[in-house]
């Protein structure tokens, strides 16, 4: 087998070349539980992460559906019985948030797709520190087990934000839950550290910084935030645990603490964390759009720089979560002004993606459908962010369903949409199998219908004055709540369908060509699935990424 990237570069459409798969690849080279549990192969760790985060997504999603079901009527009745009490409801939404944030969306893309694809894209054999990579996964497992243990111990009702002094005074295994978030933070730091080192040291010969695929730029920016911001969360959670366990007054005013200080600490991490979530999503979209438009990316450098500048700006806007929380008025004004800076690099990305599609040759396989969904949903998420950055309207909208809708459009409509798109995109590479395209398209359409039904409604609930985290609500809000709940069922159905046809594809023999979509990045220059060493021969990069010119013209 001879893999020479200089000759693979151009395919101008979906290619169904005969599978050229070595007999031994990373999935079957070694067998047995131990070969997986002790693997140092980034691809296997990526797959294990994928299984883990998908499990967390299902669990978090189940709680989301329960929350929505409970809100369907203002009496919380289902078949004549009360579905949930207020205490149960508070635990359900806390678990939904905490699981989705800490167990799913922060590790989702870097841990699974990032782990799998990043070294391949760089033309590397593995990440820089394979053992650290495995340690990161096991820390994730440890954190997950701790978080799930709280379920058995009665679960916490603090909201995923753990605001003091509620969190320091309420009953329940809060210390264990914050301990879980602490451990998960280290998992995230290890992944980030590994990726930074890998990007710096393990790029293929010929690959300069501006020859890297934009996915790498996005994941690299994410890694910077993971390494720089996560320690602050760790310290904050330790302080919280000290206060709960030993009564050391840090955040609780009754023993001399300051609850607003907690919010500053918390958002100093958790705002950058928003970009730990969205940047990998944007990174995926930057791959999907040129590949399926079969056209070079428009404004490569602008997209690369916008990833890094989003990572930097993310550190100086945390106070916009606290406009009415009692921070100084000057701080409020400054944070509002800085918050608007976020709009610029985000806008640049969107405009560049659209320009990439312009005069492209666009095939609409499922990953591209998700990419277009991302553009539309993220546009709504981004534009509604303006309402919240603007001081006078934020005072009305903050702490209402408007915020809930906004961040679901960004986190789910943005990141999860991109994640699902990326999962379809790299599924053949990971598993060696093509999924059912027809089912994938149906599921994507249902996903969009369900998503918008669920969350568009919530903007109206919020601007009408419905506060978030409410168990009981005024009767006037019931029709909108019901509509939202119906939407959540369609959304759940579409995700369930996706899981079903992806799993179904695993039952058939391997049929994926090495480059099913006509991609130009290095992961498509090896077999599907790749051999354990990724490439049989060290790839050398001689063309810029996303170069769709015919080979002859490029020479």
């Amino acid at each position: 087998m001879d893999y020479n990237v200089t000759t693979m570069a151009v395919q101008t459409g979906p290619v169904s070349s005969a599978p050229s798969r070595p007999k031994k690849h990373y999935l079957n080279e070694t067998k047995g539980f131990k070969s997986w549990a002790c693997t140092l192969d980034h691809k296997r760790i990526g797959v294990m992460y994928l299984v883990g985060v998908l499990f967390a997504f299902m669990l978090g999603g189940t709680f989301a559906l329960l929350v929505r079901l409970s809100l369907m009527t203002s009496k919380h009745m289902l078949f004549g019985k009360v579905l949930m009490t207020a205490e149960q409801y508070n635990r359900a939404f806390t678990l939904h948030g905490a699981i989705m944030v800490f167990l799913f969306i922060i590790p989702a893309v870097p841990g699974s797709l990032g782990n799998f694809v990043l070294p391949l894209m760089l033309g590397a054999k593995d990440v820089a520190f394979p053992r650290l990579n495995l340690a990161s996964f096991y820390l994730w497992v440890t954190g997950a087990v701790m978080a799930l243990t709280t379920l058995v111990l009665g679960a916490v009702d603090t909201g995923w934000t753990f605001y003091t002094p509620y969190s320091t005074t309420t009953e329940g295994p809060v210390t264990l839950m914050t301990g879980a978030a602490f451990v998960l933070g280290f998992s995230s730091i290890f992944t980030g550290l590994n990726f930074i080192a890998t990007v710096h040291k393990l790029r293929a010969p010929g690959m300069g910084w501006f020859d890297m695929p934009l996915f790498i730029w996005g994941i690299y920016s994410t890694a910077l935030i993971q390494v720089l911001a996560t320690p602050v969360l760790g310290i904050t959670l330790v302080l919280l645990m000290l206060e709960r366990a030993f009564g050391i007054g840090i955040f609780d005013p009754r023993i001399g603490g300051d609850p607003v200080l907690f919010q500053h600490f918390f958002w100093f991490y958790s705002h950058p964390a928003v970009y730990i979530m969205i940047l990998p999503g944007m990174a995926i979209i930057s791959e999907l759009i040129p590949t399926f438009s079969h056209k070079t990316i428009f404004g490569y450098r602008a997209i690369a720089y916008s990833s890094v500048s989003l990572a930097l700006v993310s550190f100086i806007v945390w106070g916009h979560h606290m406009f009415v929380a009692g921070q100084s008025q000057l701080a409020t004004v400054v944070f509002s002004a800085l918050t608007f800076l976020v709009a610029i690099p985000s806008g640049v990305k969107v405009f560049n993606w659209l320009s990439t599609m312009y005069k492209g040759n666009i095939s609409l396989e499922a990953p591209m459908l998700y990419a277009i969904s991302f553009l539309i949903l993220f546009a709504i998420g981004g534009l509604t962010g303006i309402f919240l950055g603007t001081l006078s309207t934020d005072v009305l909208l903050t702490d209402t369903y408007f915020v809930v809708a906004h961040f679901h459009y960004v986190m789910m409509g943005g990141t999860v949409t991109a994640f699902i798109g990326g999962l379809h995109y790299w599924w053949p590479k990971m598993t060696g199998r093509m999924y059912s395209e027809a089912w994938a398209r149906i599921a994507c359409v249902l996903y969009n219908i369900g998503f918008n039904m669920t969350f568009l409604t919530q903007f109206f609930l919020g601007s009408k004055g419905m506060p978030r985290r409410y168990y009981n609500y005024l009767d006037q809000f019931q029709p909108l709540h019901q509509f939202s709940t119906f939407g959540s069922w369609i959304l759940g159905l579409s995700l369930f369908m996706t899981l079903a046809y992806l799993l179904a594809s695993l039952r058939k023999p391997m049929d994926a060509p090495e480059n099913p979509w006509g991609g130009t990045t290095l992961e498509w220059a090896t077999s599907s699935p790749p051999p354990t060493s990724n490439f049989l021969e060290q790839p050398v990069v001689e063309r810029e990424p996303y170069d769709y010119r015919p080979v002859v013209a490029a020479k």
Partner: protein
Amino acid sequence: MDWFRNIMMPPQGSAYAGEVDFVYMSLFWMSVVLFLGIAIPAVYFAWRYYYKPGRVTPHITHNTFLEITWSVLPLLLCVGIFFWGLKGWMEYAVAPGEAMEVQVTAKKWLWQFEYPDGTRTVGDLHVPINKPVKFVMTSEDVLHDFFVPDMRVKHDLIPGRFTEVWFNPTVMGKHIITCAEYCGKGHSDMRGTLTVESDADFAKFLETGGTEWEDYKTHMQDWGKIQWERKGCNSCHTYDGATSKGPTWKGIWGSTVELEGGGKVVVDEAYLRESMINPQAKIVKGFQPIMPTFQGLLRENEIQGLVAFIKSVQ
């Protein structure tokens, strides 16, 4: 377009609400335009440039002019929106000096309001129309948030600290007060009613000391006990027989007490009332004439409550 605004916004309770709504609706229409500016090309390009086998795409790497344009124009737009939001917010952030002050104390899960004259209510806020009211707020336990959707204002209440919010109501009638910061089990039931009324009705409201005492109509002794604490009776009078600066209330009802300077008096309703309004008139033997008058500080229902309370501590 008022009907459209009403679909999205709560009723307007103040002039400030109108200003916020104008910003909101402007941002809404701007967002609709920008959204279409993104969504239409995304869908149109997918249709117009739909895949044809063998078509070669142009190699367009960038366009500096376009890229600078779509960085600078949004930046200018954002600067404009920031200042627009700031303008409205300045009004929200700074209460006028002449505003009436109402103290708000939140605890799981109720709102307690206290007026300048000492009138207190729970969950029942009354304000006169067209007069600015400033709320000086604190919490007794966890974070809460005083949210009045119709006035478009909210602010957190923080234990151990005072925060402020204000509004100038211009619409008569009832409005909702609701808690917007998660505070546990009763969070969603932590509501209150804001009644905006005429000056005359508000004056009448203050005269009767709010409506809180009506809850105690059938057990006035409890109302009296509350007054014993609130009005400061407890600093000199006990009700368990312990000695203090003033006579204990335990067992005093109906007894005959000796007075300073000679004479006796039976402790009945008339004597208790006189002792509150004109305490120096008859001093119980063995005590100093140190009690201040409570004339004007005690309302009729509070005097009745105190009498009922003293009666009850036998």
